[in-house]
């Protein structure tokens, strides 16, 4: 997997997926940074582990804690909607979206 190459097309695709506006004059700098990050992972992969079958996550780590199924008060709609750019009654309003 150390062969993940980040080219300009991949960078633009990621920006689109993340809904980021990427000015053309910043592409080269970001491309360089992303390539550095990906090659850092390649370096990590090169480390030889005693037992590669053992998953890193959870090895010795505590499992996710569980909470009893007891309701706590919810926020009021006014709090939920405090940062809403637009609201109608107690709903958020966003530009009309329909499945493309």
């Amino acid at each position: 997997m150390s062969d993940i190459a980040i080219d300009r097309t991949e960078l633009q695709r990621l920006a689109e997926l993340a809904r980021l506006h990427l000015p053309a004059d910043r592409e080269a700098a970001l491309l360089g940074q992303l390539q550095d990050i990906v090659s850092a992972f390649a370096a990590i992969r090169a480390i030889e582990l005693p037992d590669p079958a053992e998953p890193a996550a959870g090895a010795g780590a505590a499992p996710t804690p569980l909470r009893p199924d007891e309701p706590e008060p919810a926020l009021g709609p006014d709090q939920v909607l405090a940062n809403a750019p637009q609201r109608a009654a107690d709903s958020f309003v966003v530009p009309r979206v329909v499945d493309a």
Partner: protein
Amino acid sequence: MNTYVTVIGLEVHVQLGTATKLFSPAPADALGDANTRVHVIDIGLPGVLPRLNETAIELAVRAALAVGGDVQPVSIFARKNYFYPDLPKGYQISQYEEPYCRGGRVAIAEDRFCQLERIHLEEDAGKLVHTDAGTLVDLNRAGIALVEIVSEPDLRSPTEAAAFLTNLREILRFAGVSDCDMERGSMRCDANISLMPTGSEQFGTKVELKNLNSVKMVQRALEYEERRQTAILAAGGNVTAETRGWLDERGESRSQRSKENAPDYRYFPDPDLPPLVISEAWVESIRSQLGELPAARRARFASSYGLPEYDIGVLTQDRELGDYFEATVAAGSDAKAASNWIMTDVLAALREFGVPLEDLRVTPARLAALLELLSAKALTAVAAKKVFVDMHENDREPRASMQALGLERIAAPAMLQPLIDAAVAALPGAAADVRQGIDKPLDALKGHVMRATKGRADPHVVEQLLRTTIGGA
């Protein structure tokens, strides 16, 4: 022989019957006004951490065990990233590479099963309402605990898909996992369907169907899609890989998204949630509370009580009704008599009074006592039905109801004879016919006596007395 073989796989979302959401303590009833069931965790405010609901895991394990799945000792929550207003965090917490359950199966016919690929846990998204003024977002549903049950592509017809869903729903209701109400959205289904030439082992291009809100709708949509794909293939064309939405009122589906636009979710393990560990001891303790599943109960009802298949179908439709039946029999009632009453009067009373079975004041012990009075001929069948209603309405024992209503059966000839005489006097024509050996008018005479006694007279004694009184051929 058909030219093509239909291949269907289902993805079923089931809402777990928890009091709170999967990762937040907000109430999970999802009722009420918009945005009144929302916790800071649900809207992904900075600094919050998801806290996993123990009961959700227990119910998910119940679901897994009920379908014979393999509960995984360690599973991982992953982020499924996409931008859509129903998802305030920008990602849905789901399970991807390491689901909590693998395998399992659901019966689709006698000796035929559909294997399951996996079951995973995930949180629900919010509700969107599209209006001309924009899209309204209600986050009450966002974060509610779901399991997604993914079948193998083992189903070979729309009928099998319907059988799969019906049986799965029955099993999950029995196991107490969910109410599985498709109309209300606590069970939802997406279907994948493709066709391949008969004899081929290579699956054709599949189409995903969405917006299927009932078992019948799933079947209709798949039947439509089967015809649509057959027509395309028969004309030498190619099926397009796409997602299609079912429009039930039009009886057709419409393309929503082609595969080229398939979303890229960039799943990765959620750094906020360490692995979910489900110990073997926990699984076993849940297994021990699971109780009997529908297929086993049906077999037992047939062998232990000798009930007809129809009765068994009704009595095993949910766990509570079958328990009620067994408690009635345990209280001394004859099995078939109890079954008859439960299938008619008990179910009718639940509908009429609008109460769940647990709130019916005719308890199994009281029903058994009522049936005993009936078999001892202390009251007539007509009167027993009145007593039954009174027992619930006034919360009393059958004998108390019977006495309060004055519905004890009248069988003493001395009490009935004056009424018999009155009936014969009132309907002389009918009496004359009976005397000539025509039996039909006897019913009118009996009816006269029954009305006079408000249904309390013993019909056999009445008939006997009528015949003796009228005499003749």
